[in-house]
């Protein structure tokens, strides 16, 4: 089948200050959510938007807050 590429006996030294994947995925989620809210913001307060615009936007915003609050307070995956 071919030669195995040997893995190093000692892993390379990691530089300090790296963010954990939980933090990075969380930041990515914040950026993504901000992008979506930016897209929606055009209609909020616009004469063409109805009360439903406000309701859906508020619902999404509250859901995002809940996502991060519950996630940060939840026990780790250990």
């Amino acid at each position, binding site marked *: *089948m*071919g*030669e*195995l*590429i040997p*893995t*190093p006996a000692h*892993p*390379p030294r*990691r*530089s300090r200050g*790296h*963010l*954990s*994947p*939980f933090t*990075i*995925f*969380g930041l*990515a*989620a914040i*950026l*993504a*959510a901000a*992008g*979506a*809210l930016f*897209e*929606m913001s*055009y*209609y909020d307060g*616009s*004469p*063409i*938007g*109805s*009360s*439903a*615009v*406000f*309701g*859906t936007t*508020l*619902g*999404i915003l*509250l*859901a995002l807050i*809940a*996502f991060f609050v*519950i*996630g940060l*307070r*939840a*026990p*780790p*995956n*250990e």
Partner: protein
Amino acid sequence: MEPTSRSGSVASEEGVSFPLFDRPPALIHFLDNAEEAIRRRLARLRLFERVFLLERDWMTRITMLMVILALFWGAVGGFDAFGFQTQAVAYATDAPLHLSTMEIYSSITLHGIREFFGFVQQLEMAVLGLLVVNALGVVPRHKWALYAAVGLVNASILLFEGPVYLLPFNDNYFPAVGWYFLSPLGVAGHSSYIVSPLWFLGWLALAAGVLLWAGWMVSIIRRWYRSRFVGPRFLSGGIPVFLWFVLGTLVLVPLTYVPVVVAAIWDMGAAYAGWSLSPLANQVIFWMFGHSIVYLLFLLPILALYLLVPILARRPLYSYRYAVIAALLFVALTPLLGIHHLYLTTLPGAATWLTMALSFAIVVPSAITFFSLWMTLKGVPAARWEWNAVALFTLLSFAGAIFGGLTGPVVATVPWDVDTHNSLFVLAHFHAITILSIAAGGFALLYALFPILTGRRWFSRRLAHAHFAATLAGGVLLVLMMDELGNLGLLRRAVIFPITPQVTLDQLLLFIGITVVLVGQLFFVANGALTVFRGALFSSQGLSFDEAVRSAAQSTALRSSEVPPADQPFHRRVPRARRERAERVWAGVLVILLSGVLVVATPGTLTVANGIAGDPAFPSGTEFVTAYGQQYFWTVNESGAVSASFDNLIVAYAGQWISLNLTASGATQSVYIPFRSQPMVNVQVVPGTIAHALFQAPSAPGVYGVPDGEYDGPWFGQDVAALVVLPPAGSSFSSLAAFQAAQGSGDLYDPPIQSAASADLVANGEGLFNYSVPAPTLTATVPTTGGPVAFMWVVPLSSIGIDNYLVNVTSTNPNQQIDYVIAHNYTLPYQFGLYHLDPQAGLVPVATQPVRVNQPMTESATLRPGAYVYGIATPVAYSYNPNGESGLSTGEQTGLVMGLWGILWVS
């Protein structure tokens, strides 16, 4: 790719036999021998041997073939989009157009077909088969069933392309119906635009291929399950999470593809056997497929995330139970959402409301998924996480699903959908999901599994990282520009559109985004090619599946973040009850919030739905308008303060309420008035139904653009009517100053305003004056008793061509239309007129003259203040039939088109 168990030994055949395949029939023997003979010959060539893995087992070979074909169709589909957007930018910048109208709308159609089915569906089939075989240690069987499925899927893509004449070359019969087909568009006897029967056969072949693949998958999973379990153990943790999503995919396949078979057969019966047709019912059935297919394909990145995040994190999923709940909810809810593509039709309000509620409900499994995945990473130290291409694309797919998914509730909210339906906002939502989540998830899987498949490590880390960076940057730019254009009110599928500085800039940036994404994929293809020829050897022998994935991914790692791929022992410290409590709280909060949003949206939803389906109460003085859409223009009859008939005009007084009664034939149409300073008008008119709209004309007199929002064939771009708002009855005919101050109520499609005296009306290749439809609104000021008004116009000979409806196409000779004009003394058989817009008598001729080509013409008359229609004010009958090639077998293209007309406003 020999299937391996976790110990690394080759799994033996076990368990259940299938009587039908115990003794392969003679045909199978013949096919096996033929395949072996071809394989042996091709394997002598290094190119074929390496690329198609011809020395490997059959499952590896066919999987590689599917991956290559998927990438091929993805590339071709990508260049379809590139070609479309190149044309859009060329149109906006007055550059020469390189594709005909039919070719450009075919590009959009085939872009969708090739990306959805050739690329993503086929990739999903390849990856799921590969996963099931490798991760579960299944020995695959029934090779020719899988080959047949792959053959049918790829053959369907060719069938979809329709007929092409090679000599002389003519691809204008490629289908231009949109990637989906909305009955009766394309159906012979019911539409002015008819596709060839190959289009419908393509759908049947595609469905047959995918259903056959699903059956093949079920057969091998069934064998694995019987060999592993004594009895059912659905929630004991014995079934891996990714397999739940594989099973969910397989349940969704028939629920998705059977409706499109029904819709296609019904359309074929209506076209070729005289069956009666209910377009709305057909569309409801079609959209059972049309929305399900998106979630069917969305399960690919969901599965990828559930599979890869625990592997990369070296920890089990945060909650197995909630992952299974998410899988079950996805499958249960997906088939029920089709009607949310038909919110603005005459379907009953209850059905619309229920679909909205279910569309909110499907947020729950997505929300559970992304919460679970994020929590799976909680506690993973940075030092134990390797950033490689698999991790990067996993991150992108995760974030992309949130970015695109959060705009899902926007378009799911019915009153909000009035503002966005058919605009590029919807495309922004859709491409965020498809590029930034579905494609990203697919690439995460490919980066993980390609070395396992090929036995070679990725050749270049830099190419992998460049691929990621380009996909991210180009994808985000593309989505944001679609959003910007949608916010302006620009329609989807528009290659003829209002040209403003903002639109031009956004179209250019959108083009850059598309280009960056495509260039990024070239990095991936190059890396793949270099890998199969020059990649270091890779073996998964002795490795667990998880170790094999991590080891394979490491060949694309950022060197500073490399972590040994070996499994680490994991000791659970946080009990399941505590973790699931967090999941439960999150799910509970979400259900409460969604319920609240539903309550807030309900009144507006019922108002919209009942308004479209029925007759609302009319304020005093309402103008009653009956409009009949004939695929590319409206026939309008009015009663009330205005009592007359028009083509492509709705006439009312400033501030007057307008009640529209709408019917259509030939294709679904739409009244789309993208006001920005008052509520929009957005109504879908499905043939066979009567739709309604009630709205108030703007208070500023002027000319407002009313495009048909629903794509209805190759002359979609010219299909724009005008709402002419007259000054209040009895008042003097004021100028357009108020209209200009109010910026035309923000309607992007308002024609530009020019002084008649200095206007320079020049017809372009699309049969429009100055790239505007309606043509520019000309203004003039005269005494109350009347005065001279004059303006100039010209139809250059160079504007006559394949995109111009003014001259029929009867030959593939590119000069045929010009030759016709020359042969007829540069005169077209239409009248260019000036007509007074009389609210009681309709259009009253003031002056008419033949349309002369290549000769500057002057239109002059003594006019009193008022509104006048100028140009070719009645539809032109057009047909495309080069050398008699058009017909039921190739397709037909006719239509009644208006384009060279506008309003003269004399104050």
